[in-house]
């Protein structure tokens, strides 16, 4: 089964799907979304089949295929996955159908037809697969940049009132990072040319290079800047709250759940193995940014008044944990970081989806416009709470495993950074419980209560009437009671809820899938892949 080009199929199928959907007449938006759902489910099946064909104990890169592309420069269209890339593909496979379901009743806020929305979504899926499946650095770069295009149009065409500004900001930031990375990619080619006699972009060849430490630092800087913008680390983060807030919910889920992970994935796949000395030497800088980010973004999340901006800031804090795990240089922490990428995609994806369901009911992103939703929509509130608990990494949810691994794996090497990061778990509880209390607890009030029972004309709005400021969808004068989750919405959240709990209690299969790849990465980075040895105890005392 490993002969089947699973990866190529996962790139081509959504790309072709995007083309077909785009070619449909504008009036056929209903058919377009059905097609989008079908295509995304096919990709999910392909991802699962690829995972079945993958042998965790086998060679590092599997399901490989390659074709010469730009032979003059040694560029190959080379695909292949290690365990890390594979789980990211599985994440993509799971999230896109969820996003399609969550966007089912999305209406276009701009001039463009929803058909275009579905087409861009599928195009995005194709590029996301490509960026994780590429084993040629140039190909990675191409997908890295190509990924921006569909996301730009998803935000700019279908987002909130301030979508143009957000989309442009997202694009410029990413483009800047990409250009700097391109310089480093070319630099790698030059180095390979001088060392190997012929230039190459093949990852497996490049990691054999012995690059001068000074050059390493420069090349590292190029990659790291692109990844720090993508993942975003403080202070390169300010595009994300805007993009996350203005993007349509589906776009926000994929932006924070997958696109941003390309940054942390890049650190682990490219920075550590290709530039081990530079990574090691510059690690304190990255760790400093990571830990500042954990606390800074968490405090900012506490202070947000907009639901989607809040979730965006929580993600920035979470990316700090991932970066900590990667730059702690231990198998345990790096395994934790990889799990964190997957788990955060699931948990924050769920949080964004359920926040979107709330916003769809109230028509406002403002936290202050909601209150006591629990009493009318207990299922929605319950899912919101579960997603929040996963965000604060409560044991029993998937995020606990990854956060715990990151912290316990980082502590032996980097005790000070880890202790500061651990304080972040208090702030995580604060931002989650604060927003939960404000929106779900207390007496039923706010825009939903107003929609249910129009207030007498004399009644003054308690909050000064700011509700309409950030309307994302008009909430016409409804009088029907607020509905709890519909069967469609339940079907959308159910897979993510199940994964949050399943991976919370039984994470070991996932760990077993990624650990060999993590160990190979650690070997490349010059770390003992067997793991941290205890300071005084004998190994295996239990």
């Amino acid at each position: 089964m490993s002969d089947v080009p699973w990866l190529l199929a996962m790139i081509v199928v959504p790309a072709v799907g995007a083309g077909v959907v785009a070619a449909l007449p504008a009036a056929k938006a209903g058919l377009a979304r059905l097609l989008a759902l079908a295509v995304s489910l096919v990709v999910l099946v392909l991802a699962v089949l690829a995972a079945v064909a993958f042998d965790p104990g086998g060679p590092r890169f599997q399901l490989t295929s390659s074709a010469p592309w730009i032979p003059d420069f040694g560029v190959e269209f080379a695909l292949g996955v290690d365990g890390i890339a594979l789980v990211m593909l599985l994440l993509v496979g799971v999230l896109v159908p969820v996003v399609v379901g969550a966007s089912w009743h999305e209406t276009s806020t701009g001039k463009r037809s929803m058909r275009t929305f579905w087409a861009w979504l599928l195009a995005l899926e194709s590029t996301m697969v490509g960026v994780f499946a590429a084993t040629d650095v140039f190909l990675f770069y191409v997908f890295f940049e190509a990924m921006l295009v569909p996301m730009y149009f998803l935000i700019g065409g279908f987002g909130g009132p301030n979508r143009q500004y957000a989309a442009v900001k997202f694009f410029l930031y990413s483009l800047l990072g990409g250009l700097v990375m391109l310089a480093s990619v070319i630099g790698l080619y030059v180095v390979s040319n001088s060392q190997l006699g012929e230039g190459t972009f093949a990852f497996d060849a490049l990691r054999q290079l012995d690059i001068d430490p000074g050059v390493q630092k420069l090349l590292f800087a190029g990659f790291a800047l692109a990844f720090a913008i993508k993942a975003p680390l403080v202070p390169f983060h300010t595009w994300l709250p805007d993009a996350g807030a203005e993007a349509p919910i589906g776009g926000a889920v994929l932006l924070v759940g997958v696109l941003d992970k390309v940054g942390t994935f890049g650190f682990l796949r490219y920075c550590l193995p290709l530039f081990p000395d530079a990574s090691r030497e510059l690690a304190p800088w990255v760790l400093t940014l990571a830990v500042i980010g954990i606390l800074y973004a968490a405090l900012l999340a506490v202070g947000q008044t907009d639901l989607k901006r809040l979730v965006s800031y929580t993600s920035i804090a979470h990316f700090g944990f991932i970066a900590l795990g990667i730059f702690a240089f231990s198998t345990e922490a790096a395994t934790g970081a990889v799990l964190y990428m997957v788990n955060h995609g699931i948990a924050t994806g769920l949080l964004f989806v359920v926040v979107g369901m709330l916003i769809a009911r109230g028509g406002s992103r403002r936290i202050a416009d909601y209150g006591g939703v629990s009493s009318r929509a207990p299922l929605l509130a319950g899912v919101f709470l579960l997603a929040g608990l996963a965000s604060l990494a409560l044991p029993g949810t998937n995020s606990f495993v990854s956060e715990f691994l990151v912290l316990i794996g980082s502590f032996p090497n980097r005790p000070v950074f880890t202790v500061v990061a651990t304080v972040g778990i208090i702030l995580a509880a604060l931002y989650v419980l604060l927003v939960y209390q404000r929106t779900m607890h207390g007496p039923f009030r706010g825009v939903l209560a107003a929609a249910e029972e129009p207030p007498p004309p004399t009644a003054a709005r308690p909050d000064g009437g700011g509700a309409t400021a950030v309307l994302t969808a008009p909430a016409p004068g409804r009088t029907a009671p607020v509905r709890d989750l519909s069967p469609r919405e339940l079907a959308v959240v159910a897979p993510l809820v199940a994964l949050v709990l399943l991976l919370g209690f039984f994470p070991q299969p996932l760990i077993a899938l990624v650990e060999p790849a993590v160990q190979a990465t650690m070997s490349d980075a010059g770390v003992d892949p067997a793991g941290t040895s205890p300071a005084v105890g004998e190994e295996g005392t239990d």
Partner: protein
Amino acid sequence: METVPATGLLSAVWLLIALPLAGAAVLLVGGRRTDRWGHLLATATVLAGFVLGLLCTVQLAGLDERSAGVELFTFISTGSLDVQAGLLLDPLSAVFVLLITGVGGLIHVYSIGYMAHDPGRRRFFAYLNLFVAAMLLLVLGDSFVALYVGWEGVGLASYLLIAFWYTRPAAATAAKKAFLMNRVGDVGLALAIFVMFAQLGTTSYAGVLGSVGLLAGGTVTALGLLLLLGACGKSGQFPLQAWLPDAMEGPTPVSALIHAATMVTAGVYLIARSAPIYDATPTARNVVLAVGAVTLLIGAIAGCAQDDIKKVLAYSTVSQIGYMFLAVGLGPVGYAAGIAHLLTHGFFKAGLFLGAGSVMHAMGDRTDIRRFGGLARRLPVTFVTFGLGYLALIGFPFLSGYWTKDAIIEAALDRGGWSGWLLGAVAVVGAGLTAFYMTRLVLMTFFGRPRWEDDSALPTGTPHEAPPVMTAPMVLLAVGSVAAGFLLVQVFPLDAWLEPVFGEPAEAAHVVAPAVVGVVVTAVMALGVLAAWLVVGRREVPTTAPARVSPVVAAARRALYADAVNEALIMRPGVWLTRALVFLDNRGVDGLVNGTAAALGGSSSRLGRVQTGFVRSYALGILGGAVLVAGALVAGTTA
């Protein structure tokens, strides 16, 4: 300590956790379909757990090692970290299993009556079952990680149940406060686990507790202090005590089970379980002692000035757990005494809370003892059971509290030197204060002139005694309150049962003869009772709290300003910091980046123009390029 693989019934010990967990899942997922019988299912899982726990304990007693382990599955294994999901049933976890399922089962039964008319009854029982499952995991886990998972699980259940009546802002706020203050403690527990892994490469009890000798002195002390931080959060001990009284916003059965009998004693369990660590660090033990002594006084002082029946009991819990911390802080001489007091306290405090619930049930959910009075004749069963719990708590001779509290005071005195005398004196003063606030509570509730007769809002037909489904658990707990101490100290000595965990019971030094201690403590207790009678028994109780009071009373009413201090030191600066950062991030960081971009582009207005047209065409340009490249690729491969 030798642990053998579990066989027979013992290998099914995981069912103890699985049963209530399944109950919670059925109730939560099943939704309204389970409304009619959900509470019965939930109660049955806990009662079945009690029977299973009892059988397991009997089998455990027959084992030479009295310690059985069950390996379930690999939870997390990567690099050199290997965390197995395993359970450990030993004498210490066994007594907790019996306490949790026994008292928990009774409280489930009581709740059937107490929550009968609440529309959220199913949700209530689901959370209660979730709590029992998590609490059993906490005490049955065989590693610090398993304990941590249970630890956070009970925290979640506590949060959900404090906020059970979530439409009340006070309940929602109290729940959040409890979770956050617990999280502060959790940081300590988490860091302790990290240190264990970094130093010893393991987090299992067997691995860590068996290798304490390898650790440097400073490391052991750090471990002891970090674990203590966790214990303080969970058990409402100074300086993290302020959440526990607020937690009384939850339904009263919750206060009885979680915030009196079981969860809040998890800190004591943690310290006792980590005994080999504390044995090796006198410094950390001394801090435990100080925390216990300070908290037992804070709780007792605050309890003297509260007018809410549940708040009095809550501060009493804070204070009584202070006794337990004091006991386990004494080291080997105190572990068994601390656990014994924990068990008897579980009986009488749970009974007292259920009694308080019965009073509230009778009084239309009122909690102000200034508007109670003369309820003894109206609520005879409640009065008698509450009265027995009261006598047990204040240490009336030969009732439960007398045996277990005296043991702690004796152990403190046996420490010798000035610190022994100081700790002993604090404990004795605490006993006097306990007698005062509890007598004040009983007198104001059950005796004197009824101060509720002019309350026209009181539902008709009240006050009336609770139905049997509520009074039966109260009666059983009252029996426990009377007899448990005698049984645990004299008949089935707990220290002998716990010997596989804590080692041979030490021969008591008897710095002061036990009889003398008994007499002195009883005399101080009598003074407390007398003082209370002089204040509220002999004369009429005003229905509103006097406004002009001494600074001492004012301070006691506000629990020695714990909330005010937290607010001034943490909350308000935190709010300012957050606001400043939000401003900084919007104007500063973002502005800086935008400004740089604008400077590069010439001017900000030009950037504004650039924003729309140029970027879109660039984006399309990239796309076009990609399509061309893809086309070339296809052409290249097919050629």
